[in-house]
Each structure stands twice: as structure tokens, then as C-alpha cells.
């Protein structure tokens, strides 16, 4: 148990140091573990849809930059809700290109958003894995 908790603390520390997740992520747990877990699941589901939509919209010959901006701001907002600071920053960059109707800028920045999202989810998965191990071993989060 000590080992698990130490690994958990180390993981949280490294994620915070890399600014992938900020203190807002921990605040989610103040409303309860189930709430935090459900929120993260909702975020994951919504983010996947948003990224699919962004990719599809950018594939259009005529790009609707207003709608692109709406979707990227939605992703940014929900990222901020779970404390995903770097993802939110990447979304902000893309939103700036949307505002300027710069397709190439949007394409490049969307790739960056996707990279940040993949990194974020891999870290969240690691957190959840350790949480489950701690709970299975009789501990609490």
C-alpha cells in the first residue's frame, strides 16, 4: 500500500510539474470520487467527438471557421473543467487561427491539440490505474 501511494504521489507530482493537469483536477475529487470519475469519462467522450468533428470540418473544401472556433472553444472549456492546462493552451492557439480564418494554422495547431490530448489521456489512464490498485488494496483516494 505504501508503495502504491508513493507511486501515485510521484505520478501526480510529475504530471503537475509538466503542467499536463493543474490543481483543478484535484478539486474535482472534492465533490467525491464518483463525480470526478464520471466527469473525466464525460470529458473523454466529448473530447473524442470534438476532435472527430474538428478533423472533419477541416477536411471540407470550404471551412466554416466560426463552427471550428465553437468546437475548439468547447474542447478548451471542458479541458479547463478537468484542469487540463496544456490541452487548453493548445486549443487557445487553434482558436486564434480559427479567428483569423487561417486554415493551415488550424491544421497544424489541431495536430498539436491531438498530441496534447493523447498525452493527457495516457496520464489520466495511469492515474486511474493506480487509483484502482489502491482501492483494490483497501486504500482510499
Amino acid at each position, binding site marked *: 500500500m505504501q508503495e502504491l501511494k508513493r507511486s501515485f504521489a510521484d505520478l501526480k507530482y510529475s504530471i503537475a510539474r509538466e503542467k499536463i493537469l493543474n490543481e*483543478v483536477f484535484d478539486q474535482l475529487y472534492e465533490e467525491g470520487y464518483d463525480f470526478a470519475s464520471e466527469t473525466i469519462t*464525460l470529458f473523454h467522450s466529448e473530447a473524442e467527438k470534438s476532435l472527430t468533428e474538428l478533423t472533419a470540418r477541416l477536411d471540407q473544401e470550404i471551412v466554416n471557421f466560426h463552427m471550428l472556433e465553437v468546437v475548439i472553444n468547447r474542447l478548451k472549456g*471542458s479541458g479547463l*473543467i*478537468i484542469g487540463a492546462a496544456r490541452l487548453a493552451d493548445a486549443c487557445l492557439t487553434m482558436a486564434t487561427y480559427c479567428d483569423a480564418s487561417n486554415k493551415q494554422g488550424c491544421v497544424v495547431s489541431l495536430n498539436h491539440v491531438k498530441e496534447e490530448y493523447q498525452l493527457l489521456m495516457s496520464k489520466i489512464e495511469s492515474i486511474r490505474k493506480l487509483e484502482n490498485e489502491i482501492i483494490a488494496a483497501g486504500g482510499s483516494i
Partner: protein
Amino acid sequence: MSSLTDGDRMHVLAVDDSSVDRAVISTLLRSSKHRVTAVDSGKRALELLDLEPNVNMIITDYWMPDMTGFELLKKVKGSTEYRQIPVVIMSSENIPTRITKCLEEGAEDFLLKPVRSSDVQRVCSRMMTR
């Protein structure tokens, strides 16, 4: 708008196209014992207002497709029936001109996302002492 009763419990209409944000704002409001109806668009918000006369506050995201939170605010404040309902705007962008525009149009407050429990409590307390 109905006067506040039911033991300091408001009926809040939460409007946000993000399911994550709707879930979080609903939870924060319910933690403060308020009743929440959450919808995903300004259009649905207006439909609900027609059906539910006892909404005490609207809290809406700014950036939404089809009808922004600002457009919803204008429609509410332009309505003789609903103009008394306080409207709070939420946004992840801290743009002073946007904030000013919303407040000048009649928004009660402008909250920056991520909205925290203390923000919700502050806004609700103010509404209940109006």
C-alpha cells in the same frame, strides 16, 4: 419570475453545449441545494422558459453554436415575460470587452471557467438577497 421561496432553494436553468460543463455546473448548484435544469442550447433554454415559469436564475455558457449566451441574454432581457430573471454568463475566455458587453446588456455576473464552487455560492447568495 417567481419570488424566491422553498427554503432558499432556487430553480436554476443551466445552459451549455458541453456535457462536461453541464454536469459540473449542475453538481455545483445541487451541492448548494438548488434545483437545476440543464439544457444544451439557447433554443432549448427558451423552450423551457415557456414551459417552466419558476426559473429563478439562468447560468449560460457564452460560446455555443446557433445561439450564443450573449444572444440568449438579449432575448431574455428583451422579453417582457422573462426580463426579470437574472442571467449569469460563463466563459473560458477573459476578454474585457466581452465581459463589459454582457454586463451592459443586463447580465448579473460573468464567471470565468473553470467555474468553482465558491463562484456558484457567491452568485447564488447574491441572487437570493435581491
